[in-house]
């Protein structure tokens, strides 16, 4: 069976949407070209998960209108909990498809930092966006879902950190989803120019229980020479989305990119996280925690590709599967010919909490160069009844014992997360999900 990919949206709909947002003509053309290629492009093929019957293309409406916020005070409580209001000077909040709030400190504005919604960026920084948008990172015609994303993009943010600018406090983006008809085709484009540094945190938060739309999300992170980016996420998207999330990084010489990914969706999810270590002596570190529950099906492919010499890649993923949730952890370290003295390390572990939960960890090393080092570890297992017995023999209830074992299982990753705020939020979400 092939999936029906006929869209309700026509070329004319896309053109008028793009023009209605006063997008530069290159963007309109890029969207239309993507739309034209949609029919012929293949679906992505995440290893070990068959997605031919998944619905990535049907959704109630392309955009919904939401009210913006005039101050952080107006935010709903769930969102306030994510924001350190008094200290948070650099924050963008998008409500469904509407840019709802943005603030950037005067100091960073003066230094030339750009932090704005994607539409404003396209209008006001067209050349800069064009240079990086779906060029070095994700290609429009990689497969059907990337093309769909480009054609239908309806939100996102642009972050540009100029040369030599070091941003001390984290920059935060909150994508709030509180309308069950909304679809999210969000694009985060983060460019850290030479010798710059930034910590960026993005939160995807559904406050509706169930939803009917699509989440087709791409984040591109471009890290130039000797720059450092720490990119954290806490994704909590509702059941009902078919989530495709692609987070991709490209490092230049001596650059460092650290990912801290908290994948806490309740939706079926295909997650692709690829880091291209292009420049010599650059580093990519991925730390990911996952909690699956209900009947969720998820696939997490994490790939670090070493092109430059002396590159260092590390993948560390731990996941807990409850109920009837299933997930595949694909970890791929690829060292290209010529990437001498590189090192590719990975560790994936899955803990299953019930008879019907499923997990699979596939560590893969693809090495085309002799003078390198690499290593991997993977495990999939169930909660050890003797561990529970031991804890319970001290008076701890079975439920609390399970909770301790789960937190303990995820702790080696959570404790390593490079962003305190993300660590704290994640611990709370994990607590909620395993309760």
């Amino acid at each position, binding site marked *: 069976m092939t999936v029906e990919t006929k869209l309700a949206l026509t070329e004319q709909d896309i053109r008028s949407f793009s023009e209605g947002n006063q997008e530069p003509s290159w963007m309109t053309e890029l969207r239309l070209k993507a739309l034209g290629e949609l029919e012929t492009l293949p679906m992505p093929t995440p290893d070990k998960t068959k997605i031919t019957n998944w619905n990535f293309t049907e959704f109630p409406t392309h955009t919904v209108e939401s009210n913006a916020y005039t101050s952080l005070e107006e935010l709903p409580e769930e969102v306030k909990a994510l924001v350190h209001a008094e200290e948070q000077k650099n924050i963008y909040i998008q409500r469904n498809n509407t840019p709802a709030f943005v603030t950037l400190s005067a100091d960073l504005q003066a230094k030339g930092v750009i932090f704005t919604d994607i539409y404003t960026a396209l209008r006001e920084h067209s050349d800069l966006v064009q240079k990086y948008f779906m060029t070095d990172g994700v290609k429009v015609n990689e497969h059907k879902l990337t093309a769909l994303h480009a054609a239908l993009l309806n939100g996102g943010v642009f972050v540009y950190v100029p040369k030599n600018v070091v941003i001390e406090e984290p920059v935060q983006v909150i994508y709030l989803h509180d309308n069950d008809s909304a679809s999210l085709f969000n694009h985060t484009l983060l460019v850290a120019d030479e010798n710059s540094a930034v910590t960026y945190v993005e939160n995807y938060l559904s406050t509706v229980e169930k939803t009917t739309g699509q989440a087709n999300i791409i984040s591109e992170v471009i890290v130039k020479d000797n720059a450092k980016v720490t990119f954290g996420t806490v994704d909590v998207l509702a059941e009902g989305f078919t989530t495709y999330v692609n987070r991709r990084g490209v490092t230049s010489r001596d650059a460092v990119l650290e990912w801290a990914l908290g994948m806490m969706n309740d939706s079926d999810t295909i997650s692709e996280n690829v880091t291209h270590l292009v420049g010599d002596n650059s580093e990519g570190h991925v730390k990911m925690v996952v909690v699956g529950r209900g009947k969720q099906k998820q696939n997490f492919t994490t790939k670090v590709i070493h092109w430059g010499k002396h590159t260092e890649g590390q993948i560390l993923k731990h996941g807990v599967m409850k109920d009837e949730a299933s997930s595949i952890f694909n970890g791929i370290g690829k060292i290209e010919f010529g990437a001498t003295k590189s090192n590719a390390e990975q560790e994936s572990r899955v803990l299953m909490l019930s008879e019907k939960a499923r997990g699979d960890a596939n560590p893969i090393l693809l090495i085309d160069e002799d003078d390198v080092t690499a290593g991997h570890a993977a495990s999939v297992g169930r909660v050890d009844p*003797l561990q529970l017995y031991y804890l319970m*023999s*001290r008076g*701890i209830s*079975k439920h609390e014992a399970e909770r301790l074992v789960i*937190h*303990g*299982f995820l*702790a080696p990753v959570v404790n390593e997360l490079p962003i305190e705020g993300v660590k704290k939020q994640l611990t709370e979400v994990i607590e909620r999900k395993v309760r």
Partner: protein
Amino acid sequence: MSTLVIKNLHVAIDGKEILKGVNLTINTNEIHAIMGPNGTGKSTLASAIMGHPKYEVTSGSVELDGEDVLEMEVDERAKAGLFLAMQYPSEITGVTNADFLRSAINARREEGEEISLMKFIRELDSKMEFLEMDVDMAQRYLNEGFSGGEKKRNEILQLMMLQPKFAILDEIDSGLDIDALKVVSKGINEMRGEGFGSLIITHYQRLLNYITPDYVHVMMQGRVVKSGGPELAQKLEAQGYDWIKEELGIEDETVGQEA
């Protein structure tokens, strides 16, 4: 005074009967030692009382002050006042020793009555010092990477922190050097008194040089075959078990054999 009464206890593992009718009564303010060669059912008794998931009680009863222990979940048994220092404590990644102990203490208390952090730290520090434990052991993951001796000390630390009515110590002395043995004994002797009773399982008399038992029992073939005072342990140390086997006409003392 509290009393733990074990009556005609039969226990099987994977369908094979290991305990074949154990009778034993322990009061607080008493220390009982169970001795016997390997494979006679001593550890099975300990595990069955605590509720190990692999052991099946096929008949008999265990009562704590008249309450049916066998009806209780493992955590309820602990809250009722039982404690088992295990021969092979589990290792639990990501859960620090201190967090674990606090959860265990608070599990016995009502909501809103939790132990204050300061009080907890004070007690933990003083007990760790008493047991000559490294301060960093509080923040290490529970039993992970602990040496054999560290694990045993950690069991005694839990015992002292949780203050149960009855502690069963399952071969707490195995694999301990003499210094560690002295420390572990010091901990148990510290617990000794009015509100505390203990059942010490060992096959070495050595431990009983440091903890003088009130009663000594010998297990063979899944039953208590002989009971006596501390002098029984002395005699076993000097003469071994053969005289008991002879006296009772036992050829093979392990379970699965009948006299």
